């Protein structure tokens, strides 16, 4: 859809959108320059030679790409790459500069699809409400019931779009994700992940229990003295 994507991405109607192969080719010289920047920095860290500092300053804007290349270097150390192998490391790093397109493509579309669905759902709800048929339309009410978890799914797809789409960077062109992660062991991560899973599984069970309990009580049991109860609450605490 040329008249949707182009203005969304470039804020104009005529700028061409760069393809994946072109992006990879454009990154090659920056990866090479970045390797020089990281190597110079590591040498400077050890020897404090003015020449290394000068070398670093000449290439510092590409340092992020050099850090990205360290994944393909021996022991993740770009200074250990033999000169004749630099080009092959650059070639290996080139595909890394792009996110997983399949995941980003489909998670974005699922999110937008759900957004459009919500729009239609609320348009129908408004229409049925105006016609005073909302409570009698069993099919529509059923759809509404089953649509309860969909907003969560939509936000999850949006989150996946953002997180997968910004890979491989934590800070664009500066800090690769794998370098920004902590150095903690897998067991630490398992501990926190297991803890969150257990805690929030309990929460959702408790929450669903309460939701069903109060839904079964119905709006009448609650609604009639809601305002009065709130006012009481204030006066008690303010004695």
């Amino acid at each position: 859809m040329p008249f949707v994507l182009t203005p969304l991405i470039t804020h104009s109607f005529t700028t061409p959108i760069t393809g994946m192969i072109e992006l990879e080719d454009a990154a090659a010289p920056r990866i090479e320059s970045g390797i020089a920047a990281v190597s110079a920095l590591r040498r400077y860290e050890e020897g404090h030679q003015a020449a290394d500092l000068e070398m670093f300053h000449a290439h510092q804007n590409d340092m992020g790409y050099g850090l990205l290349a360290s994944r393909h270097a021996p022991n993740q150390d770009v200074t250990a790459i033999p000169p004749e192998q630099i080009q092959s490391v650059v070639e290996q790093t080139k595909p890394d500069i792009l996110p997983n397109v399949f995941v980003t493509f489909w998670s974005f579309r699922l999110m937008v699809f759900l957004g459009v669905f919500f729009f239609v759902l609320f348009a129908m709800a408004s229409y049925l409400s105006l016609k005073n048929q909302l409570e009698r339309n069993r099919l529509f009410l059923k759809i509404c019931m089953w649509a309860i978890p969909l907003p969560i799914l939509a936000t999850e797809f949006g989150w996946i779009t953002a997180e997968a789409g910004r890979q491989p960077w934590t800070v664009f062109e500066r800090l690769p994700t794998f370098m920004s992660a902590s150095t903690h062991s897998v067991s630490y991560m398992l501990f926190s992940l297991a803890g969150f899973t257990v805690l929030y599984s309990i929460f959702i069970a408790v929450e669903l229990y309460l939701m069903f309990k109060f839904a079964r009580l119905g709006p009448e049991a609650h609604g009639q003295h809601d305002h009065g109860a709130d006012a009481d609450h204030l006066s008690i605490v303010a004695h």
Partner: protein
Amino acid sequence: MDLYVILKLVWAGLLCVLLIGLGLMVGMDMGVGTLLRFVGRTDGERRTALNIIGPHWDGNQVWFILGGGAIFAAFPTLYATSFSVFYVVMILLLFSMILRPVAFEYRSKVDARLWRASWDWVFLLSGFLPMFVYGAAFGNILQGVGYHFNWSGQYFQDGSFLSYLLNPFAILCGLMAVSLSVMQGGVMLMIRSENPIHDRARRYASRAGLVAVVLFLVGGVWVRGMHGFVLEQGNPAMPANPMHGQHVSMQVGAWLNNYAAHPVLWLLPLLGVVCMLAEVALVLANRPRVAWWMGLGAWVGTIGTVAASMFPFFMPSTTNPDQSLTIWNSSASQYGLTCMLAVALIFVPLILCYTSWCYYVMRGKVHTADIIKDTHSY
């Protein structure tokens, strides 16, 4: 003096203010949580205790957010390194603090004995554990923490999380923070409750206060024989980078060096002890309102004592002392500190205003009889 140095100092001072606010206000609510099962024997009494802090507890959490936020914005290297080095402990703190609001909201939604008893245990856990971790963190940074940075600024942990938890001095500091929080929680319960809650709170608050004084003094003597850190070489105006430019040595008893150089600093621990004792005396004399303000002095004295001992260190490293995080090498940029200061100068007074206003509006006793009738409150 260089403007950057002044900004670093102002932010270090502001961080102390926020940590004092956290200890005083969040600590008070957590003290009530810890005491809940002991000051309230019946469900109505426990609900009364909850509704005493009910209007304020989430507002007071602002100090917790602000303390974390201030470290994040003003001392980002300290934030990243300390939160990560204490990872397992921080996650435990996080879990218990996630449970707390849920307990507030859910406890009184279902009228069943087991349901409410379970949430009461959650209150105990989520009141005790965060304050214990808060105090223990101070105990750990006073002893120094094992970490170092590599060439890229990536930090590496050199100690196990067990050494941060199963550590006698850290346990002492943790229990000290819990005692202060229980004392302050008890005082707040006294201000807004009637018997029998009032008298039970009085008993727990006075005992907790005495425990706090003893632990504080024991900690002070302990520090004399503990190794402290000395900044041998380092420029306050240095760029905020922990990898270079500092030379630090470890010496036994060095945390008392600042007091030897500036004896006026002894006023801080003195303030702490006097305020804690005065709070206990006022509690026993049934003057909880005045006693509450002694709690402020107790926290100022306690946090102030740690700050005066450690200045200019934030979190010294035992495995590579030269890379210790100090006020000078872990701050944000001058621009960042300036912007944040403008924000803080507007919002910290605002917080003080709305908090006082809320406590003024919600003054007076909470009656158990009214709470039992009102099923919609906590």
